[in-house]
């Protein structure tokens, strides 16, 4: 089997027993990136374009260093030498960081995000920065200032968003691991439409320090991988208290790897009545029914559950997130970093820079947020949305008194064709309908592949757990993954070529 087709856990084991070196593993993935990703400065006609910046030299040097330390008998991290694709929302010292926006073009940050420090401390090798919807606003990666990424299962379709570069990189075997961020579903929805696994942890479990803010009270970094075990291993590396983030939970993160294989027999699984009805594609609905049958076959008790305020979550989200974004994005004014469009006065320079540097979706949300926070409308919009948020949180608390986990389809649809929804923002926003409630409540939620629809495109199952119970969500996801036997290798007439497939 080709190195690039192996999971992070397998690669780590092979390196630990000396079967392969970190340098070989990293080289294999860099070669794959060179083969299918195209020129990082712009998308080729059939390229995945998962990366905005490939850090090949640094990755090779890092791998060589890990090999040398292993040879000296030094203790290394569990994922030592495993390549990882990093969403460009994470600040990396000296390495271009754009957040998918032209306004940050050319910026080389003076510091590293906490998660980047943790990855390095765990000897994980960052191979590059991945494409994303500008400032993480979007569900298709078409809002990137640097062109869209493509879905490895069908190159004419989107890989989801906003962590679409990360999901595409993992699905296209460019890296076994990736980091994404999830504000309203941006880890889970791209995972679902690319046949990969994505975990949004509890808000506050992974540090936001050095994560370029979209909506501070909702943003959460999390792991993306092709297996649940890999996601758990990566989560273990990045989770834990960070004194530089005051919203970081001041407790040690519990172990999620050791209990992964524990039985889920007897668990109560709640099916959320409000998430999965109208507007869900038939293929998605069918796959979800199959998933419930699989869960029952694993000895769980599947019951119907209600989150009465879930239908209000999406409108509340689309007030809270843009409000926070309008403030968070005020610092991009052309003065200190990134793009500057010159003009006679400071104000005109600010305006011209922002007009040129921000894309349409970002401008739309800045306008919505500015409006919602303005003195005359604050009570009617931002404050009201905050009340809905509290109600959604209470719904979840009540539901989790009855069940161990809640499930729904991750996304109402499979990957859609590139350009299909570009001019219809409301249709685009509906992609987040099932994922947003977990963000408002701050609870952990994972998307795990539940199968393919009739057209051969992946569908995701969302599993939500009470706050700080990532272990429970991951256990259910792992058991489900084993039972469903999903093969994460992209296939189909329009898929990126998977090595070994031709030979087989």
């Amino acid at each position, binding site marked *: 089997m080709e190195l690039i087709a192996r999971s992070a856990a397998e690669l780590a084991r092979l390196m630990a027993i000396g079967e392969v070196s970190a340098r070989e593993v990293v080289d294999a993935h860099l070669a794959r990136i060179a083969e299918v990703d195209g020129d990082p400065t712009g998308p080729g006609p059939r390229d995945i374009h998962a990366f905005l910046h490939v850090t090949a030299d640094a990755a090779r040097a890092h791998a060589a260093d890990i090999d040398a330390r292993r040879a000296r008998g030094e203790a290394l991290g569990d994922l030592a030498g495993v390549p990882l694709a990093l969403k460009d929302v*994470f*600040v990396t010292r000296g390495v271009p*960081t754009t*957040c998918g926006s032209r306004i*940050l073009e050319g*910026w080389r*940050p*003076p*510091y590293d*995000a906490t998660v980047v420090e943790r990855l390095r401390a765990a000897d994980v090798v960052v191979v590059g920065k991945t494409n994303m919807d500008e400032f993480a606003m979007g569900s298709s990666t078409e809002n990137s200032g640097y062109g869209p990424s493509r879905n490895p299962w069908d190159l004419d379709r989107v890989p989801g968003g906003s962590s679409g570069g990360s999901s595409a990189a993992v699905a296209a075997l460019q890296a076994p691991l990736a980091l994404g961020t999830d504000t309203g579903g941006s880890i889970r929805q791209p995972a679902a439409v690319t046949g990969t696994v994505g975990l949004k942890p509890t808000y506050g479990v992974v540090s*936001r*320090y*050095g*994560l*370029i*803010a979209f*909506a*501070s*009270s909702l943003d959460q970094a999390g792991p993306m991988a092709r297996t649940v075990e890999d996601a758990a291993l990566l989560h273990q590396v990045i989770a834990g208290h960070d*004194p*530089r*983030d*005051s*919203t970081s939970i001041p407790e040690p993160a519990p172990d999620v790897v050791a209990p992964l294989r524990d039985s889920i027999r007897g668990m109560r699984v709640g099916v959320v009545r409000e998430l999965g009805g109208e507007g869900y594609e038939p293929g998605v609905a069918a796959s979800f029914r199959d998933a419930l049958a699989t869960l029952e076959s694993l000895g769980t008790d599947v019951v119907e559950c209600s989150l009465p305020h879930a239908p209000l979550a999406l409108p509340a989200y689309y007030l809270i997130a843009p*409000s*926070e974004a*309008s*403030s968070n994005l*005020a*610092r*991009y*004014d052309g*003065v*200190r*970093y990134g793009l500057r469009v010159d003009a006679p*006065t*400071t*104000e005109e320079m*600010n305006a011209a820079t922002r007009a040129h540097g921000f894309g349409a979706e970002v401008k739309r949300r800045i306008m919505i947020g*500015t409006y919602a*926070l*303005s*003195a005359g409308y*604050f009570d009617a919009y*931002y404050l009201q949305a905050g009340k809905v948020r509290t109600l959604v949180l209470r719904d979840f608390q009540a539901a989790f008194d009855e069940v161990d986990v809640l499930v729904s389809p991750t996304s109402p649809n499979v990957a859609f064709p590139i350009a299909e929804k570009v001019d219809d923002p409301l249709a685009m926003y509906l992609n987040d309908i099932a994922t947003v409630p977990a963000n408002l409540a701050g609870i952990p939620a994972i998307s795990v592949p539940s199968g393919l629809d009739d057209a051969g495109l992946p569908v995701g199952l969302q599993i939500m757990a009470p706050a700080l119970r990532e272990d429970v969500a991951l256990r259910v996801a792992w058991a489900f993954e084993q039972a469903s036997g999903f093969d994460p290798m992209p296939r189909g007439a329009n898929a990126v070529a998977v090595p070994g497939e031709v030979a087989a």
Partner: protein
Amino acid sequence: MTDGWELVVGLEVHVELSTASKMFCGCATDFGAPPNTRVCPVCTGQPGALPVANAAAVESAARLGLALNCAIAPTCWFHRKNYFYPDLAKNYQISQYDIPLCSDGWLDLDTDGDPSRIGIERVHMEEDTGKMEHRGGGGRLHGAEQSLIDYNRCGIPLLECVSRPDIRSPEQAGAFVRELQGIVRTLGISDAKMEEGSLRCDVNVSVRRVAADGTSEPYGTRCEIKNLNSTRSLVRAVAYEAERQIHVLESAGQIVQETRHWDEERGLTELLRRKEAVTDYRYFPDPDLVEVVSSAAWVEQLHASLPELPATARGRLVEAGVDGAQAATIVSYGLLAWYDEAVAGDADPRTTANWLTGEVVAQLNERGAEPADTAVTGHHIGELVRLVDDETLSHKLGREVLDAVFETGAAPTRIVEERGIQQISDEAALDALVERIIADNPDTAATIREGNTKAIGALVGQVMRETRGRANPQLVNQLLADRILGG
């Protein structure tokens, strides 16, 4: 104040806290460091950087609130105040909005024996901005060829203390700021130096006619005067602005709400900008920061640990027999610790107060020094007061010794010993000298015998000269009188 008019003043005082690190990051706060050397991703608003509230700053804020008799909010938040300002890298300021940490207190003043109580609306926490320097274009942002910014001050913790419009005279406004300054210094939370900008004040001034029946007229339209950098400027600016407004109103004009600037040299206020529309700061709770929770036990503990405040200290001094004005000077010059140490060492309270408010203040002023900058201690002062009291030193010699204490930091007794300058109060030692002076000046002695006793002064002067000022003048005077007039 022009008859028939009443002045209404409210103050907004900004106090820069002297915490070791900034409000939301670990950067140092030392004054005068080279530009942009006390900065990090947080205080320069780099993408991805996050604020974490400084617990020491929150504690300082609560202590000031308690010293001003405020209620401490059990729970409060930091808000974002959004605007595009060139001196704030994030383009919003982290401040407090609907619920400040401290609210509803008061400050008691005693201006010229006229006690008054000024309400404190709130004391809230916020972060300071950077400092800008515009080159070209008359020093203003618009039209400047270059605008330089120093972010060292960006993020330094700032308290905004807002009074109620209870102040009724320019002098009272000055007294308010001085009293607040004294409290802040006593608490040790800021050096409160107006000239260095660690205490800055804006003042709102309006006037209203005094109704014939004594009832209050509604408040008049107010004007705000920004950035006054001394209490002297504050008092002058308020007085000028009140007269300006009265003049406008008496000439049938109208006061327009606006922000004005005090021109110290010309002694007048002038228009800075009109407040035509209220800026919409789009305040909302900062989602990067968690709420500030003040437990009752914590507040109780802070309250119990407050030092003696200026008003209490003044009361105690007056109780001990010190003159009221002197007590005020001792407290406001930060001389209380010296006073207490001196008195604890058995120096007389009143004499100590005389020395502190007279010679010691003169020394400090002459040297441009704060008490803490000197090597002088309260023990030194006490020793000096006792040396003068027991007539080892004359007042004049005492002054010399004090100067030497400031100069060398040595104890007064040691200076006296080393320099041999103790007063000569030994009658036997002076006798021969007095005899000789009388013999040398027969004419003067004759005049004195004829009844012109004032002439004794000339002979005293000669004795003092011969002893280089060391002779006890009272004793010399008495000896001369005895010898010449017989006794």
